[in-house]
């Protein structure tokens, strides 16, 4: 990673709406070079996607989320990757992490109701032959997601003009 790449990633990870022109001014780098660098980061899969963090609890969408601890048997030659993929391909799965410690995969899933989740665990996840056991924890409230505080009440309390 070059310093330029790191700088661009830091800016875009904070707000992907910042334009190449703005980045060019902020970093004092030619706009063409900024565009090319971003393109290269996208092509290399470093920048995966530009999405939006939404506090769904403030919408009328009904959903339930759970964190499932999964113990699995790693497969010869392929370790955990194959079983992880078998799991993360399900659209209801929001994230899959390989963990150190007591269990192997931390899987978060979302559904409309608790029944959806129970169904997913019983019918989709547990039957996979490499899955040894699961422990499901329902998520009651999300405070901070991807480094972003969802309901941040800290505001700009500054006076409009000060010396």
């Amino acid at each position, binding site marked *: 990673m070059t310093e330029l790449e790191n700088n661009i990633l*830091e800016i875009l990870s904070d*707000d992907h709406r910042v334009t190449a022109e*703005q980045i060019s*001014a902020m*970093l004092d780098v030619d706009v063409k070079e900024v565009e090319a660098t971003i393109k290269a980061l996208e092509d290399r899969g470093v920048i995966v996607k530009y999405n939006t963090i939404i506090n769904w609890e403030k919408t009328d969408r009904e959903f339930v989320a759970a964190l499932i601890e999964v113990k699995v048997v790693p497969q010869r030659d392929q370790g955990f990757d194959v079983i992880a993929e078998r799991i993360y391909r399900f659209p209801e799965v929001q994230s899959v992490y390989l963990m150190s410690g007591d269990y192997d995969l931390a899987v978060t899933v979302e559904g409309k109701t608790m029944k959806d989740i129970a169904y997913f665990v019983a019918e989709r996840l547990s039957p996979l032959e490499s899955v040894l056991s699961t422990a499901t924890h329902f998520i009651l409230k999300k405070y901070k997601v991807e480094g972003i505080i969802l309901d941040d009440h800290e505001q700009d309390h500054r*006076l*409009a*003009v000060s*010396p």
Partner: protein
Amino acid sequence: MNIKDMISPIIRDMPPSGIRRFFDLVDEIEGAVSLGVGEPDFITPWHIREASIYSLEEGYTHYTSNWGLPGLRREIARYLSHRFNVDYNPEDQIIVTVGASEAIDLALRAIVTTGDEVLVPEPSYVSYMPCVEMAGGRVVPIVTKADDEFRLTAQALRETITPRTKALILPYPNNPTGGVMLRSDLEAIADVLEDTDILVLSDEIYAELTYGDTTHVSIASLPGMAERTVVISGFSKAFAMTGWRVGYAAGHKDIIAAMVKIHQYTMLCAPIMSQIAATEALRAGYNDGYEDIKRMHREYDRRRRLMVKSFNDMGLECFEPRGAFYVFPSIQRTGMSSDEFCERLLQEQKVAVVPGNAFGASGEGFIRCSYAYSIDALTEALKRIKVFAEKYVR
């Protein structure tokens, strides 16, 4: 009895603050976006706040020593030495104050007597002149110029020194211009001062905010200068701690002792919860390589470049400031005065910036725009200023 006549003439005749006047104007405009603040947009890092909250839980609600908490003074001494090569003894050469503001006042009151002249490079921070006058002294402004990147030159200094000159205020990195003094500039100033009995009050509150390959040099770190220099600084800018009201001064023990004398009767001590927070700021900084400062600095630097480029593109010529978090573009090409520009920009585009003349007469023809705002906020403000500039820049 006419109460007005009871007010001391020094206070009565003090001109109203240009900033204050502008604040009142802005206050009336709804939906105004402001580039008018002189404080960080960042909120104090959580570990610093947390340390202070914990101290309250533990019952730290009392006075401290007049000098400030010994642990904080030791941290300040280590910090000044480590970051700026400035060595003062925490036992008797450092005082913790209620912001750099109090330190400025104390230092001036400790040294200035009636008739003394104090040299103040201008444009500069608004409190030097009133504090000098309240101490009974007289300000002799030294005009600095955009062509010199608002540095104080040895020649300008030499020309203003008289037998009555008691002190020089060295306000760098500068608010409002963003100007800094390089080592070579300071060496030239030190040369001039060497054979004089002039003290230096070096306001280094923006010391952590210098950009590009410029790093802050304290005049106190130059050979022979520590004794005659009072270094004034604080936590407001570097650690985003304006509301905590904690700062400090470091200097010759006789000057600091004199400052403590005033401080003990007027302030007693800086708030203990703020002193504890400040201790945490410096201790954690020393241990993690000043990560808080670096993170905020990186952001300021990006915004700074965005601002400089945007103003220059608009035809509002802007030298590249190397310090603080302000740009100070010239508005000459609009043919307006600073006041007129700022008032019309506020009325027409609802953007608040501060007229340069609020920082001394020589700030006329300039505006101070702070970039202590998110990129979003800056982008919106710049968009509006651009519309204004397109209409008026000739």
